[in-house]
């Protein structure tokens, strides 16, 4: 197992290298003046500009520029945001907790809802409740998250006033108090639900089908014949078997939640990595764009890796392949 993980980890390195090359050249190719934000914008003296270009290394050969960037990147120096004039790493550290909080809440909501609905549907298939849940699933799978988000804001925030429609916390609450955390949770619920909608639907679907299938299996019949209460059969025997494959999805979730946050954070004006990314692209804040792109790409890789490892834990045959 350790060997397998190591092998996969080593396999990530060339991938990361290629991604970094692509990210670097994309950033180089982005329009707008790459010097902007680094030099005095009111000074149009051509000599000054040339001097600054030299000083900032814009005249170096491309591979030297790449090397400089990538070596400092590896050491955790992501450069200085041209917009906020502060280290990108500090900027990211400010926003990451918000996004992680959003993603975790989304994950929790997803699991709770998916288990509740999946269990119900799986135990009582083809009932009205099951059909309703199936309807929810189809909508959840088909409706794009931004459409769902816009509808959610309209109905739950504007019409019903159940949730706030923007921001991450109320205005006048003291940092760290219970009220503060309640307010944060209140703000994160709706975006988290939307962010997790797709997974909720697919997990529910998966769990339902798996439960139905498992309930026909021999070990269930045996348990029943022994007189085990039906509730216990479902909760202990069947569920345990159905959860295992679900767990392997976790890796994919990490990546998809972080990328999905771009849209969700935009709809709900939730100050996280996604909003920062859009903002940085709009403001041509290259160092920030590069860092976030690298970070998300690495997360996809790590997510896939975790998924594979978990899968390997569950199904030993994979490791050998």
């Amino acid at each position: 197992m350790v060997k397998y993980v190591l092998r996969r980890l080593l396999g990530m390195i060339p991938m990361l290298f290629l991604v970094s090359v692509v990210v670097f050249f994309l950033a180089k190719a982005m329009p707008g003046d790459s010097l902007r934000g680094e030099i005095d914008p009111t000074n149009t003296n051509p000599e000054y500009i040339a001097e600054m270009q030299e000083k900032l290394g814009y005249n170096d050969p491309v591979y030297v520029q790449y090397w400089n960037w990538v070596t400092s990147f590896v050491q955790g120096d992501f450069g200085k945001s041209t917009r906020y004039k502060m280290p990108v790493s500090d900027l990211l550290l400010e926003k990451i907790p918000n996004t992680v909080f959003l993603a975790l809440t989304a994950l929790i909501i997803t699991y709770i809802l998916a288990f509740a609905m999946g269990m119900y549907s799986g135990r009582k298939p083809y009932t009205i409740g099951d059909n309703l849940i199936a309807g929810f699933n189809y909508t959840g799978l088909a409706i794009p998250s931004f459409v769902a988000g816009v509808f959610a804001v309209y109905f739950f925030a504007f019409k019903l006033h159940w949730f706030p429609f923007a921001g991450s916390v109320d205005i006048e609450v003291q940092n760290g108090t219970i009220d503060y955390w309640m307010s944060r949770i209140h703000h994160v619920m709706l975006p988290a639900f939307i962010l997790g909608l797709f997974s909720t639907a697919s997990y529910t679907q998966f769990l339902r089908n798996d439960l139905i299938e498992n309930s026909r299996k021999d070990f269930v019949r045996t348990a029943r014949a022994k007189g085990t209460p039906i509730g216990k059969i479902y909760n202990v025997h069947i569920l345990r078997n159905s959860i295992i494959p679900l767990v392997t999805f976790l890796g994919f979730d990490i990546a998809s939640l972080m990328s999905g946050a771009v849209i969700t954070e935009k709809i709900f004006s939730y100050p996280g990595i996604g909003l920062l990314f859009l903002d940085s692209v709009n403001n041509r804040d290259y160092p920030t764009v590069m860092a976030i792109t690298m970070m998300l790409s690495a997360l996809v890789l790590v997510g896939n890796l975790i998924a594979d490892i978990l899968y390997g834990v569950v199904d030993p045959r994979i490791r050998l392949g």
Partner: protein
Amino acid sequence: MKRKSMLWLFAMILVLSAFLAACGGDKASDDKSGDSKGDGKATETEDSGPQQGGTLTYALDAVPEGLFSFAFYGIATDAEIIDFFDEGLIKYDENLEPIPNYAEWETEDNQHFTFKFKEGVKWHNGEELTVNDWVFALETLASPDYDGPRYANVETVEGAPEFREGKADSISGLKVIDDYTIEVTFDAPRLNNLTNLWTYPMPAKEFEGIEVKDMSGSDAVRKNPVGVGPFKVEKIVPGESVELVKNEDYWNGDVNLDKIIVRIIDNSATVGALQNGEVDMVAIQPVSGPEVEKLDNVEIVTAPGLSYYYVGFKLGKFDNKQQKIVEENPKYQDVKLRQAMAHAINRQEWIDAFFFGYGKPINKPVPSAHWISADDSEVTGYDYDPEKAKKLLDEAGYKDVDGDGFREDPKGEKFSVKFSHYATGNPTFESRATALTQYWEEVGLKSELEMVEVNLYYDMIEKDDPSIETFFGGWSTGADPDPTPTWASDQIWNYPRYNNPEADELLKKALSVEEIGDDKDKRKQVYAEWQKIVTDDVPMIFIAELDELYAVSDKVGGFTVDVAGTNNPSEWYKKEGK
């Protein structure tokens, strides 16, 4: 580098950044560059009078960059916060004339100035403010490592260029007499030397041991900024809020409020937050006007702004190396064509539709609120008159010869106006730009619109990209009246590449100490002549000047705003029982 009046430039940079920041909405500008608090002229109806105590929540709809220092900030949002805790030596009255704040000045010849500081003005850290703090600030700006945009505000001080090049250890034009007196010598006598000069000291003690190149990233700028203003910075939560508390030792009288909380809230939340009282005050954009008007507990206070929108014609090409216009673009050279295009636009209708009446048509290159602004009777106006536009086009030879409903150029070839406008995520930009092209189509000029990504936009304009023929733009002026940086033919910011030696001559004359001296009326007259010439030539169609809008809760008293900005926040108060 040529001399520049930086206030115009900042202002312009600010407008640009406001455009960038205002992706969700449209904001003309928050020009805070030259402002300091005027003494509250446009007073509201008085109530029972100022009360002590209370917390005021002030909202910002854009995220500050976190550069909380006059010397380093880049966008207007940061300046809105700095204004609460710091002040400059001088301020401007409602005519944008400089008046003393905590320093007085004297000059005989407009080259040598003596500044006298008030004694006992204290920084928030307890240190007393002296002229050395000011010298420190000027030397910071003139340092070769300085990474902010303000060097030009020191450049005209004698010896600053040498200091920047490392040939001198200090700026020779700054002569400290004692802690409260300093003599400043400029490299030449100029009428706008004072308005162009940097007048914001920096707390030298706070920056002790910090290299100039590290200053903009230092805690003294980002986390614990120190000023001399009515409020002290208590806590900064980056990207979310800034908490300011009353400065008990404020040099300029008592402060009414205990606390100001500046909250960053999204544009989309502004109206709701005003309605339920979470926010007491916010500078809003005209687009939000109609929504805010509906609220009972909030009033909209407007002041004439210093920014305007225009449609520019690219008349030539600028060579940055030679610093002059080297080429003429033939397409829009006929002044009658430009005049006709100006007459074709129904500006009032356009402003009402896209800015909900929070603005008015402007007829000259200087906002009407500025003291050098000519009266409309002194300039050539271009009112909406499609018939006249058609007549002018006929005269100029632009006629429809092939019967397709659109005019051909005088040579009989197809003619099409190419109009560029910047694009952000905001869909109304496209629609207001299209509306302008439709006016031209109505007088028979075929028009095509190109929406250009906003980050490329001003770059393309500045570099005279051939794809830019006519373009939409906006900028604002500061307190300095000198329009040279955006209008003289040797300036890169003269975007239309307007080249009229007569106009250049007038701009020079207006600043000349020998010819004008200190005679304000005469100076204004010269500027009026200049404005007349510009409006005759129509290098750009002046479209609209916009108001500055503040939404103020009925719980707040003592707030006034004029063209120079809001009054001193120390005068604001919360009404009791509300």
